[in-house]
């Protein structure tokens, strides 16, 4: 269908983009890869008066190894993340997750920053970002600030990004190979009914779950149950994974009931832990 009319702005720098957000306030919407915003605009679920296209801010697309962490520009596409040798070698969970997003065309255009900022409760990245305990940089009129992944996802489609801020960079730690993302997709859309991302390191297990609740979350019950176990038995993994949906209110829709989403969270958590361990 046909989106409603809007004014189009194409800033060349982050500062220009922030200035536009400050000037237009709630009327403005950032356009990154467009795969969340444009369908919503075509259905007229979203009708921003001003679209700020940050697609030409060139210094927002990069993947840099900075020693202990890998810095990823917000406008880096899912495909670039999937194809990144640096990430494959140093922090393979993110490329594995990127490969589960949408399809080739979506991955060619969609960006990690856009996906995280939209915070769809069934998007794939949030699980990985939480499991990696990533850091997210936000730039606004008051300058730059860093938010930890655990504080980033606030509620349904709601993040720590203030209305006048732009997500500019994501930093993930270098990890061992022992990571995995296992997802059950919603058959029609490809979004996650339940996706579990697991990072197993010297400091223990971290599990991020997406698709199950109104926002992605850390499955702390699973993490605690496995604390101190370097090589848990299959039974221990299964027992721990049973905590994957503890304390959350699972979503229900025509594609999966709350109970099934919670069950899939458990199954996929168990499988992700097993897969991650198998990569040791």
């Amino acid at each position, binding site marked *: 269908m046909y989106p409603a009319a809007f004014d189009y702005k194409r800033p060349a720098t982050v500062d220009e983009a922030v200035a536009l957000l400050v000037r237009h306030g709630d009327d403005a919407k950032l356009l990154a890869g467009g795969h969340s915003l444009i369908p919503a605009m075509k259905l007229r*679920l979203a009708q921003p008066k001003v679209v700020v296209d940050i697609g030409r801010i060139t210094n927002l697309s990069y993947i840099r190894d900075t020693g202990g962490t890998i810095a990823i520009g917000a406008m880096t596409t899912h495909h670039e993340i999937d194809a990144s040798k640096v990430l494959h070698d140093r922090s393979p969970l993110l490329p594995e997750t990127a490969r589960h997003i949408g399809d080739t065309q979506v991955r060619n255009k969609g960006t990690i920053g856009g996906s995280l900022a939209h915070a769809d409760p069934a998007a794939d990245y949030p699980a990985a970002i939480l499991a990696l305990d990533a850091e997210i940089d936000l730039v606004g009129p008051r300058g730059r600030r860093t938010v930890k992944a655990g504080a980033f996802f606030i509620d349904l489609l709601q993040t720590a990004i203030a209305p006048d801020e732009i997500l500019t960079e994501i930093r993930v730690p270098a990890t061992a190979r022992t990571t995995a993302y296992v997802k059950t997709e919603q058959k029609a859309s490809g979004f996650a009914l339940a996706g579990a991302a697991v990072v197993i390191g010297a400091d223990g297990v971290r599990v991020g779950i997406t698709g199950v609740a109104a926002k992605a979350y850390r499955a702390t019950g699973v993490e605690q149950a496995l604390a101190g176990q370097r090589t848990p038995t299959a039974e221990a993994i299964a027992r721990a994974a049973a905590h994957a949906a503890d304390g959350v209110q699972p979503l229900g829709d025509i594609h999966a009931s709350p109970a099934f989403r919670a069950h899939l969270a458990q199954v996929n958590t168990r499988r992700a832990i097993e897969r991650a361990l198998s990569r040791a």
Partner: protein
Amino acid sequence: MCEMKLTLTSVVPADRARVFAALIDADVLRRCIPGCETFTAKGPDTYEAALKIGVAGLKGTYSGKAAIRDKQPPDSLTLGFEGKGGPGFVRGSAAITLSADGDSTRIVCDADVQVGGLIAAVGSRLVEAAARKLADDFFRQLSSELSTQQQ
């Protein structure tokens, strides 16, 4: 799903009489309903409202009506509402009961909400979560309103 029965519980820091008064006060409601732009009395306990409502960037403009029924101060009331806009319509009712909880009031809201049109067709996955979030926002704002009044 697009027909929802939601039970929401909230505790606000004020006694039942004040909470009840707030819930039938057009000015308070205008300030507390998320995205409410106008809220005008059209008759005894009937109101017309304009709302810009939604989640994050997915906001629609709705015009709507609300009516308060079955007032049993300070125990309970029922709020009926209906709204329509580009993305579809929302209608339903909320049976609200108030009970004392120490110095505060526990509000239990049994809502029966139907949405239709585009939101039902494309947003079913998010509708219930969005409804909960909007209700939470309302009660949070109401709490803060009543705390401010207290001071």
